[in-house]
């Protein structure tokens, strides 16, 4: 069944109602303070209430009968989700590995992996692009700008 924008609005409105109420309640636990001395909970409390109210309006509005804009399918292609997931997981893997293995090596693996899996390239291209990127990034960030990127236990 094709979805319309008001369905999407309904879902996101519920999400924001949750967020707003969460922050409001949280604001009370860290002390809203008095008017003459507002505490740390002052801003979360009031902003949370405002967000909740606005989200309720969005929710109510979504039940109006009118010509709602038709939304495209959530994933444009059947295999879209694979590429999306691969990209996110690769970034997480990069983050987890690069303190251990060192910036240059993990950069090489990261680029090579994405090139090979998401839109598969041939090996020659993959290796050339990955090594060029790793070396250039190393030169710019470590040797030129002197940033303190982790070198890993291998020392580069």
């Amino acid at each position, binding site marked *: 069944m094709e979805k319309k924008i008001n369905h999407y609005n309904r879902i996101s409105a519920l999400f924001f109602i949750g967020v707003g109420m969460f922050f409001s309640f949280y604001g009370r636990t860290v002390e809203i303070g008095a008017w003459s001395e507002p505490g740390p909970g002052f801003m979360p409390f009031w902003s949370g209430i405002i967000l909740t109210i606005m989200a309720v309006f969005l929710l109510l509005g979504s039940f109006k009968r009118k010509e709602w804009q038709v939304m495209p399918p959530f994933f444009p292609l059947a295999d879209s989700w694979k590429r999306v997931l691969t990209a996110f997981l690769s970034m997480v893997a990069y983050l987890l590995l690069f303190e251990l293995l060192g910036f240059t090596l993990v950069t090489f693996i990261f680029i090579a992996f994405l*090139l090979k899996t998401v839109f598969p390239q041939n090996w020659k291209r993959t290796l050339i692009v990955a090594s060029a990127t790793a070396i250039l990034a190393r030169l710019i960030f470590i040797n030129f700008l002197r940033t303190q990127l982790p070198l890993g236990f291998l020392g580069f």
Partner: protein
Amino acid sequence: MDLLNHLVLGSQVLFTPINIFFCFIGVLMGTLVGVLPGLGPTAAIALLLPSTFHMTPVTAIIMLAGIYYGAMYGGSTTSILVNIPGEAASVITCLDGYQMALKGRAGPALGIAAFGSFIAGTLSIIGLMLVAPPLAKFALAFGPPEYFALMLLGMVVLIYLAAGSMLKALMIGVFGLLLSTIGMDSISGTQRLTFGILEFSDGVGLIPAIMGLFGVAEVIVNLEEGITRSVVTTRVRDLMPNLQDWKDSIWPILRGSVLGFFIGILPGPAPVISAFTSYAVEKKLSKYPERFGTGVIEGVAGPESANNSATGGAFIPLFTLGIPCNSVIAVLLGAFMIYGIQPGPMMIDKYPDLFWGTVMSMYLGNVMLLVLNLPLIGIWVQVLKVPYPILFPIILLFCLIGVFSLNYSSVEVALMIGFGIFGYLARKFQYEMAPLVLALVLGPMMESNVRLSLVISQGDPMIFVTHPISAGLMAVTFVLLVSPFIPWIGKRRKKLQEKVGGEEV
């Protein structure tokens, strides 16, 4: 003529080979860190500080200042090319700049950004020379209630940032305010929603947020499409803005420059606020506000000029009061102390060579930047010719490294990935991300100023309307908020909605 003498003095200081050389090094480094997302001028200046110890203070300040305004120049490049704002000030450039690039007009977008920055930079230096001392008092007139009123006005700007639903733009804005309360409360020291992670105690980082919401989310959306599309095909002869572009841009550039300069004087994240404000002003004044966000050149010209001119404005409180109004200037201030210069209200009188030398170097630096950047446009556009399957891992890599190099914190990188996921989903639900960024910027200042105001007034909210400046700002805010309900303005807003097919607000 006093000013003339000063200019001569400044030129004498500047036109030594060594100073010109380091001015060039400064703007070159600045352009580089500006183009690299994440790594900003603050980090670059801090990293390079030790290498300036053997220089004279004037030379060092000329170079360090060059890094600062050079970075502002370079900041727009990645926003336009690949939708990664290198810093918060160029978030707004993404809205229309990236759209222009998608239409094959990356060249004119980059060109107008460079020219606009040049014009704004030059104007703000003239402003700095002519009106620095009297204007310093202007910054002092702003106390907590005035700042709160200004921030509130900033939030109302969200209405004009919205391309689609106003309600959803406001909601995402308030959501941003809520996110900005995460971390240690700067007034009471209470930890809020940090879950024991100390890195969160400084709040949700702005750079991880913008790189995730814009850069990462954009890449992921592009990956969904199976077709391995190339980002754009640009004909080389369209590299520069044409006559029509200039006609459209010249007023936004001038307005942006003036706006940026005045906002720049005020402490806080002035380049960001001035860029957002300029965008809102241009959209409000435009004959075709509905086309903003689809790649109109005014949406690049105004904000880019504003954020550059704000950098010039930011030097005023530094030189006249010794007050740093942002983190970059704070590092510069620290540098003064290392060279044994006591910053403070007397600085211009005590060290005229330093002040006028720096000012003159900014002229030269701006010319250098223009000369440096125009040929670069040709190269940048070539970047877009790299097929997307090869380009996208590199974009992601730059996001990862850029965020990590800020504070060497893995938590911030994780945060960026999280914002990437949020940004990706929010696009599916048709929420815009620019209001979120603006709210993250304004949030902390808004919160501390409303609370300080209430402490000062002992709980009396009338403080916001009894102070004249704040009363004025509040009045403007009020008018803007009710304007949709006043028929003749409301009609225009409605027309706008019909055109973009938005739903009711």
